[in-house]
């Protein structure tokens, strides 16, 4: 049941409890209990909203930064990651396989702000060997959702 609930709320965290219960095949009280338990267990870590900021006309700059680091003796990558993720400017950080170590996602108001963070905070860290900043120019799809308006129902009214 947990799998089912999580799959559903991952797509739509505002789904109403009645529908959630119906789809998960249990009653509403059970769903509420499970939700609360999973929040306690930090399985559910938050409820966010997917926003297309472009449409609001608000300037935002998001960069995907490839970071190469030297892992710390005895502490591996985790300690390095912690030093990076504690900055509020960092919205995501992932340990990555391949040609670099971390993918850091920075959100700022402007390109300058992001660039400044990279050059003044991230790059100078002792353990950071190199950074490569990739700015997002346009978002097409995010978290499984296509940001363009969905097409209209073009079926005949009756057939």
């Amino acid at each position: 049941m947990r799998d089912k609930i999580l799959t559903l709320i991952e797509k739509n965290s505002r789904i109403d409890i009645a529908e959630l219960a119906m789809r998960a095949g249990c009653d509403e009280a059970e769903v509420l209990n499970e939700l609360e338990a999973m929040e306690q267990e930090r399985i559910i870590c938050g409820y966010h909203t997917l926003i297309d900021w472009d449409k609001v006309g608000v300037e935002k700059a998001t960069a995907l930064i490839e970071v190469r680091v030297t892992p710390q003796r005895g502490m591996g990558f985790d300690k390095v990651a912690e030093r990076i993720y504690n900055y509020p400017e960092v919205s995501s950080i992932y340990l990555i396989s391949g040609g670099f170590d971390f993918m850091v996602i920075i959100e700022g108001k402007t390109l300058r702000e992001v660039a400044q963070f990279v050059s003044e905070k991230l790059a100078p860290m002792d353990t950071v060997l190199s950074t490569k900043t990739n700015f997002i120019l346009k978002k097409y799809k995010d978290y499984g959702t296509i940001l363009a308006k969905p097409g209209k129902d073009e079926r005949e009214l009756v057939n």
Partner: protein
Amino acid sequence: MRNPLSKTIVEIKPSGIRKFFDIASEMDDVISLGVGEPDFDTPWHIRDEGIYSLEKGKTSYTSNAGLKELKEEIVKFLERRYDLSYDPIRETIVTVGGSEAIDIAMRAMLDPGDEVLIPQPSYVSYEPCCILANGTPVIIELKAENEFRLTAAELEAAITPKTKLLVLPFPNNPTGAVMERKDLEAIAEVIEKYDLYVLSDEIYSELTYLDRHVSIASLPGMKERTILINGFSKSHSMTGWRLGYACGPELIIKQMLKIHQFAIMCAPTTSQYAAVEAMRNGDEDVAKMREEYDVRRKYLLRRFKNMGLECFEPFGAFYVFPCIKPFGMTSDEFATELLKKKKVCVVPGTAFGDCGEGFLRISYAYSLENLKIALDRMEEFVKELNEKR
């Protein structure tokens, strides 16, 4: 000037569904529960194959009976899903939707005077196709107390020495009724006893919510007596691609192929390439859609129960068929009022045969969100009717 028209075609009534379309399309803010086609887009990987086939320049005719690889995939699909075994070359033909298959099967099988048993309520095209093929339609009225299944007794009672063919339209549009194995076994016995043939329209076979669909052709002795019709429209949400198929005895398929070859040439090539992909990699899409339909089906049944509308539980297709007899209105009156007062468009049961009187066809090929709004409006309508009574 001479009358340019054929008497046969002039005497055929236009589809009763049309009237509601005409009223509804004049109104704003109508919520329709009236469509008979899926609300999902064709899964992308299938569309992509269609596009890819165009890019590669696959724009010529295929062989009359359809692409060999598609026929092979169809046969494999029928085997893995329904335990059927057909020869892709001699016993399979790809058609322009299930509709064409119905038409050419009847034309291949009927002589003037041959009677065709058509259970109703059912899809609107069997009767006209039968008439156009010079057959004589004989209607069997299905009953709500049997959950709109065809019983052996009903079948036997309708048989005359002229009876040749039984149309078996399950899972059913508009009732959502299914025939389970035991129901089919009883029918098969009668079919053999009277030496009849079956035109089994299984276009909704992938949309069943109790058990997996059983094809009558899979019962002993029935493959030789059955023309099985199916397609991609409902299962893979591919209505606009116009692609279906028929499988049956070589003897009949051969003659169907003749009509198809002269009247149609071949089914659309792009659609056929897309359908190969649907058959090879589409089972999971179908399962997902089926699961979504089932949620909606249960939701509707619960809402109707709460409204006090009597409704048997349909286990197939994407329709429910609630009864509105207690309101003392005909189906047509009820549907017309509901449309005018609450802007909800449904189809009266009578569009699918006279015995659909007292029932409505409600389609759940709509998002749950849409269904909620429509059912809220319908609930108000029923409440107002109850207050008046």
